[in-house]
Structures are given as C-alpha cells and as structure tokens.
C-alpha cells in the first residue's frame, strides 16, 4: 500500500514537470507581449521593463530560470500588479477558496449521502423519487445559473441574505457555499444511492441481518462502508470540478479568492499569474486525486489484498 503511494507520487513528479513546461511554452507562444495591452509604452520604458522582468533573455534561458524558481516555490512577479509576486497572490487567495470549497463539500456530502442512502433504503417510495428528482435538477441547472437564481430569490426579492462578499456581512458565506455544493450534492446522492442498492443485495448484508443486527447497525456498519466507495472515488475528480465552480461562484459573489484571481489574470493577460496558478492548480488536483485513490483503496478490501 505504502509502495503504491510512493510509486504514484514518483509518477506525479514528471507529470507536473511536463505540465509546467508545456504551459510555460504555450504562454511564451502567445502573440503580443504582456506590456502592449491598453496604453502604449515608450520604447525606452518597454526596454527597461523587459530587462527588469528578464524578457530579453532567450526562451531557453527564461525557461531554466523559471523552473529553478519553481522548485524553490518562487513563481515570479505578477505583470499586472507590480511589486507583488505570484506566490504571494496565491497565498492570499487560497485560504478563501479553500474555505468556500470546504463548506461546499460539507454541504454536498451531508445532503448527498443522507438523501442517497435514504432513497436506496426506501426504494420506489416518494422518499426515493423526490430526492432523485431534485438531484436531477441539481445536475441540469448549471452553477452559473443556480448562483444568480439564488441571489435573485434570497438576496434581491426576499432580502434575507447578502448578495455578495465573503466574511464581511453575517450570512454572506451561505449562498456561495450552497451554490457551489448543490451540484455535487446531486451527483453524490445519485452515486450513493446506486452504490447502496448494489451492496444491500449482497450476501454479507443478509448474514448481518440474519444474525440479528438492528437495521441501523446493518446500514451504518456494513452497507455504507462498501456502498459509499463510489462517492469516495468521486471526491478526487470532484476537486477539479470544484475549482472550476469556484471560478464561477467567486465571480458571481465577488469573492476575492484564487478562482477570481485566475479569471482576472486571464482577462488581463497577466501571463506569469496564469502560468503560476495553472501549475499550482495542477499540483493540487494531482494531489487530491492521489488522496482519493488511496482512500478508495483502503475502503475496498479486495483491491487492498491484490495490491
């Protein structure tokens, strides 16, 4: 098991290296320099700028320079916000995005597992149909529509919750977290229902019931352990989706997190910021996929033995 873990980490390093290199040269291939955006700069200033940011050097030299910085955790200066480094900006935005993602996942897990398990246990009753219908809505209404609709209903018409911000007004974290979490609650509900249905028909559940365990014990101790494996393996890839969702949610609710920084950097053509955040996001996603794979391995005794 530990061997697998280390093997996967060893594989992740060259992958991240390749991602960093490809992104670097993609950004270099972009037409237009970072400083010829809105206002024209005099040639002398441009020359000084290029010198200051080491843009005169050959691509290869810049690449070696960037990569050696990267290893030390230095992602270079931001082109748009002079005097601030990309690493610094990531460090400011990250805690906010993490908090948002954490609440969202919490909501998704609570709501999703609860309704999915209930639906599986009460199969073909209205306790099954109604949550599953709501889950279908959650899958079909995209985050970028759900967010504005929630704002329209709770923020503008009912005026019970703030429409934007993060941590400034009481309750302003509620709508963003629900917006981001709802779609995942829907997926998790469907996955846990499917997983539970599969497990509930198996022999070991019958054995557990036959030896006189209460239904509650059967469900919690025996069925859920196997039935929720699909949910655990879903969580890794879900992190990538949460990230994309955070772009939308942070834009809608004007939250100063990493997602909004990224979208703004994309608009401003702040190339070092794009490059840095892309590499950072990739590393994070690779890491979370690793964790979720490991967790599914640990939960599933069959794959544990065969490894």
């Amino acid at each position: 098991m530990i061997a697998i873990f280390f093997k996967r980490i060893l594989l992740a390093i060259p992958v991240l290296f390749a991602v960093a290199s490809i992104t670097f040269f993609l950004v270099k291939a972009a037409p237009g320099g970072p400083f010829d955006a809105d206002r024209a700069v005099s040639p002398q200033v441009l020359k000084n700028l290029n010198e200051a940011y080491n843009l005169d050097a050959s691509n290869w030299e810049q690449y070696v320079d960037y990569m050696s910085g990267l290893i030390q955790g230095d992602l270079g200066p931001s082109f748009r916000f002079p005097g601030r480094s990309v690493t610094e900006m990531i460090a400011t935005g990250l805690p906010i995005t993490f908090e948002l993602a954490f609440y969202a996942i919490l909501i998704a897990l609570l709501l999703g597992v609860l309704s999915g398990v209930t639906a599986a246990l009460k199969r073909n009753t209205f306790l099954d149909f109604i949550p599953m219908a709501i889950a279908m809505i959650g899958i079909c209404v995209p985050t970028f529509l759900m967010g504005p609709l929630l704002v329209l209903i709770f923020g503008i018409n009912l005026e019970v919750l703030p429409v934007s911000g993060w941590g400034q007004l009481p309750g302003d974290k509620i709508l963003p977290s629900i917006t981001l979490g709802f779609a995942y609650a829907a997926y998790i509900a469907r996955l846990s229902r499917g997983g539970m249905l599969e497990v509930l028909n198996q022999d070991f559940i019958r054995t557990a019931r036959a030896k006189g365990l209460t239904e509650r014990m059967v469900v919690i101790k025996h069925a859920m352990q196997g039935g929720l494996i699909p949910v655990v393996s879903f969580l890794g890839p879900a992190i990538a989706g949460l990230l994309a969702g955070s772009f939308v949610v942070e834009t809608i609710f004007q939250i100063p997190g990493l997602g909004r920084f990224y979208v703004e950097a994309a608009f401003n053509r702040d190339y070092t910021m794009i490059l840095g955040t892309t590499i950072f996001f990739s590393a994070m996603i690779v890491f979370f996929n690793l964790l979720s794979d490991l967790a599914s391995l640990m939960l599933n005794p069959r794959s544990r033995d065969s490894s």
Partner: protein
Amino acid sequence: MNNNSLWSDALYRLTRNRAAMIGGLILVALIICAILAPWIAPYSYSYQDLNLGASPPSSDHLLGTDILGRDLLSRILYGARISLLVGFVATGVALVIGVSWGIIAGYMGGRIDSVMMRIVDVLYGLPFIIFIILLMVIFGRNLWLLFGAIGAVEWLTMARIVRGQVIGLKNQEFVLAAQAMGVNNLAMFRRHLLPNILGPIAVYATLTIPQVMLLEGFLSFLGLGIQPPMSSWGTLIKDGVESMEEYSWLLIYPGITFTITLFALNFFGDGLRDALDPKTSDN
C-alpha cells in the same frame, strides 16, 4: 419478438420510456428551431430598437427585449444554433479521438495498450478546464478552437469505454475468423469491431453532449467563450445576470431554455442506455 435485432429491440424499449421520448421530442423540436432560426425568428438577432430598451414580454416581443432593444426570443433561437452546434461538433471531435484511441489500445493490447491507457490515466488527472481557458486566452476566442479544445478534453472516458468493449470482443470467434482470413487492421476496426460497439458509443455520446454544452456555457459565462454579437445560451445567461435586478426575464428565459435542453438530453441519454442495455436499467 423472436427475430428482432438489437436495434429494433432497443427502439421498442425506447418508445416505451415516456421520459426519454419526451426528451427526444424536445430535442428534435429544438434542433428544427435552431436550423430554421433565420426564417422563424421574429427579428434578427442583432436588430436593435434602442427606443424600446429593455421591455418586459409583450405581444410584439413574446419574451421581451434586452437593454439594447433586441428581441430575446430571436436571440434565444439564434443562440440555440451556437449552443447545439458546439454540443454536437465538440462531441463529434471527442468521439473520433476517443473511439480510435480505444479501439487501437484494446485491439493491439500488450505494451501499446498499457502505454496508451497510461497516457489516458495521466491526462485524467489534469485540470483541463484551466487548459481550455489558457488556450482561449492565448489564441483568441475562436469558435473552431473552442470545438477542438472541448472535444480534446472529453474523449478520455470514451477511450476507456471503447477499449473495454473491444477487449471483450477480441477473443470472440468472428474476430478470430476474420484474423485467420487475413483481414487487415483497418478493415478489422471498421467492419468487425466498430459495428459491435455502436451501442455504448451512442449512449455515451448522447450523455457527452450536455456536458459539452455545460462547458461552453461555463466559458461563455466567464466571458471566455462565444463573443458578441454572436450569442450562445451561455452568453445570454451572462447578460441576463448583469441586469437581473431590474430585468429578471433576461435571466429567466434563457435559463429555462438551457435547463430544459439539458434535462431533455439527460433523459434521452438515460433512456437510450436503458434501451440498449436493459441489465443496467435497474439502478
């Protein structure tokens, strides 16, 4: 029902599934509307009546007008062209890459297979949405690039599904017989393998279309997808959000259209899966 082929059997089951049929009908209606948009739309998508400004639904403008006085119904109809086009073309791109990749990996087996599937595994773990954004930023917001970029992301699962199917087929007698007769690889893929895996491919393709449309909507919402004056449903929703406080219909109608379409695609896709593979239909 004795001599029915897989397809007529599936068609029978599909027609019995009410949700799937309603979904299918909505889709057909939408596709017809999208194709006929220039003829059935009451106004041009770019015609502005600035005197009108944003006005609520009325008999002249069934769904109202936007801030520039453009007819919302017409814009939704024209938007359908872009949104559906992205959905179908990008899925087509994903289909071509994924199916070829999966057939080759599955049929060749051995080292080729393990290298090809390793690549898929690695690509799975990468944040592709970010790469699409990167591409759109670097190379401009080009419609064809968007098709290619989205298609290039969505093929991974297709490759896995196809590979699994091909491995199941590989050792069956008709494939061995064809091998014995010296059929070359290309003919083997086209004549013997592909027709036998069309079912799962069709199912997965139908379920990929809504994902692709969501992705396009997501990009357009961020302002990185379709650029004005062209509009997709994603850009209409984006515009609607900007003015939803005063003119809520600008958000609600495009939103409803988009959601209904996704519902229809999902129900039809689920129905198709159940029809082609009755074993999985129970959960």
